[in-house]
């Protein structure tokens, strides 16, 4: 009989209690990453560099080495690590605040270096851990604790589409935006995460995926509502697509 252990192997730590809130999209993405590592048989040489924010919890659920970097700096830490230890598989797991706000420069230059590392930006459209503040990716009109009347693009600027910034960089070999808004999206996201890691394993270059997820707590919504918001509103602006697939 199949049990969870036989399905997920050694990578996903099923004993660890989740710190994610009920319905949080991180839970799905963390599982997908663990499944990818397991499927490639790279657990023992994988290292996760996590950001500050809820994404920082992700490594607790995986039996791999991890580095909790300073806020926003994971891509630079990954560059340094990969320079010294190119045989290991290094990926960053960051939120949209960590990566799109304070750490945008680190991401852009790490991507432009074209070094074979993998960066994942889990975009829930707000700062989750600190209590639902506006992030660079909050939607036009989105109510957050720092935009009580909704994000006003005149005042706060426009929601930032991060992968679009990386599209023209020759060193970026796999680039996608995915979501976990529904089952079909999750299956698609799983394939892209597989490709992003494969890109690194083959040493082709930099790989990046933005994954749109709901944060029911930060959005102040019921879980079901938050997934509907994600599918209807977030994906309307952040359209899932494969921007680049230069894997051959």
């Amino acid at each position: 009989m199949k049990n969870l252990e036989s399905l997920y192997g050694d990578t996903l730590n099923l004993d660890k209690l989740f710190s994610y809130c009920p319905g949080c999209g991180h839970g799905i993405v963390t599982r997908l990453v663990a499944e990818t590592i397991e499927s490639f048989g790279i657990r023992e040489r994988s290292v996760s560099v996590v950001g500050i924010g809820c994404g920082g919890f992700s490594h607790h659920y995986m039996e791999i080495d991890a580095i909790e970097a300073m806020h926003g700096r994971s891509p630079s830490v990954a560059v340094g690590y990969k320079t010294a230890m190119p045989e290991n598989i290094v990926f960053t797991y960051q939120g949209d605040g960590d990566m799109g706000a304070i750490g945008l420069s680190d991401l852009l230059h790490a991507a432009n270096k074209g070094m074979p590392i993998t960066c994942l930006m889990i975009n829930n459209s707000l700062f989750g851990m600190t209590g639902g503040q506006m992030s660079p990716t909050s939607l036009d009109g989105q109510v957050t604790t720092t935009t009580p009347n909704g994000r006003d693009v005149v005042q706060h600027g426009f929601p930032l589409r991060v992968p679009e910034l990386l599209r023209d960089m020759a060193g970026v070999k796999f680039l996608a935006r995915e979501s976990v808004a529904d089952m079909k999206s999750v299956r698609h996201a799983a394939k892209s995460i597989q490709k992003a890691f494969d890109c690194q394993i083959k040493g082709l270059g930099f790989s990046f995926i933005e994954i749109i997820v709901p944060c029911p707590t930060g959005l102040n919504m019921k879980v079901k509502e938050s997934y509907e918001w994600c599918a209807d509103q977030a994906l309307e602006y952040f359209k899932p697509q494969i921007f680049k697939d230069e894997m051959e």
Partner: protein
Amino acid sequence: MSGETLFLKNSETFAESMVRCGVRYHFAYPITPATEVMNRSAVILPEYGGRMVQMESELAVANALAGCACTGKLGATSTSGPGMALMQETVSFMAAGELPCIMLDAMRVGPGDGDIVGAQSDYYLATRGGGHGDYRVIVLAPDSGQEIVDIMPDAVRLAYTYRTPVLFVIDGVTVQMTESAVFPETNNYAEEYDTSSWSFTGTKDHDKRFLLTGSYSHTQGEEMNDRLRKKYTQIVTQEQRWEEEALEDTEVLVVAFGIHGRMARDLVSRMRAQGKKVGCIRPITLWPFPDNAFEDLPTSIKSVLVVEMNHGQMVDDVRLALNGRLPVHFLGKTGGDMPMCTLAEMEAKANSLLED
């Protein structure tokens, strides 16, 4: 002494020395007067199977250095004051994470953009930790190309033994000076240290490990600080270094580091030749400050003169070490075409103190 004599800018000597002692990864961003370190390491590191990685900012530099250190391998960086200030969050991170590395602050005039001429303006920044939190890094202040070479193996030893960043602070005058240095046989000292008990090389080598400098419970923050405090106490006890000259029967004691420490030696020989009782102490470790050097001073000393290329920073540590036992005077200068005190100014000040 057997070895190879090279006639180099001391910034290049720094690069040669760190690479010959085991640094294989150098992360840097151009900044005067430290740039020649990366120029040279870019050329020589590939010969040793390493790399100079030019990053986009000192923020990225420091974090790449931290990532490198997580593998247990020895990385380095070189910068000047503004870059050093940018790196401080991550220096704090590396101190907390107990990650070894070698750093150089080739000091120039501050604050702000300041000036690119040499200074000793970063004494506070270097010796008080520099970033957030209750931590210190080991600070070495060689006064010549030869001392850079001589002290580098010890710097590697300190970095690995105590698992800490080791920071060289060298005034921009010394860094840009060209002089001879004798290099001993090349030896990868970093390889002599077993990092398998703590490095993050993957679970093929050990059970899951993760680098945590934060806390999931309030006791973790306290435990981290207690652990660091114990280590710092041990460093203060065991690792103070200084050079002293002509202390016996001295009446005026000159205290200076770096280029002014080197000049203080000249001052002592010049004034001793005139029968004037002047001696000097040159701190080589700025943290830990060599308090022990000031413990059993001769009773002949009437006063102490601290000379710095700033408006008075190390003088505070001299006062703390003396704890009110002797009057402490200060002579300092920063910036300008002559960004330091001249030997004549030092001599005039010492003479006036002798006559007091």
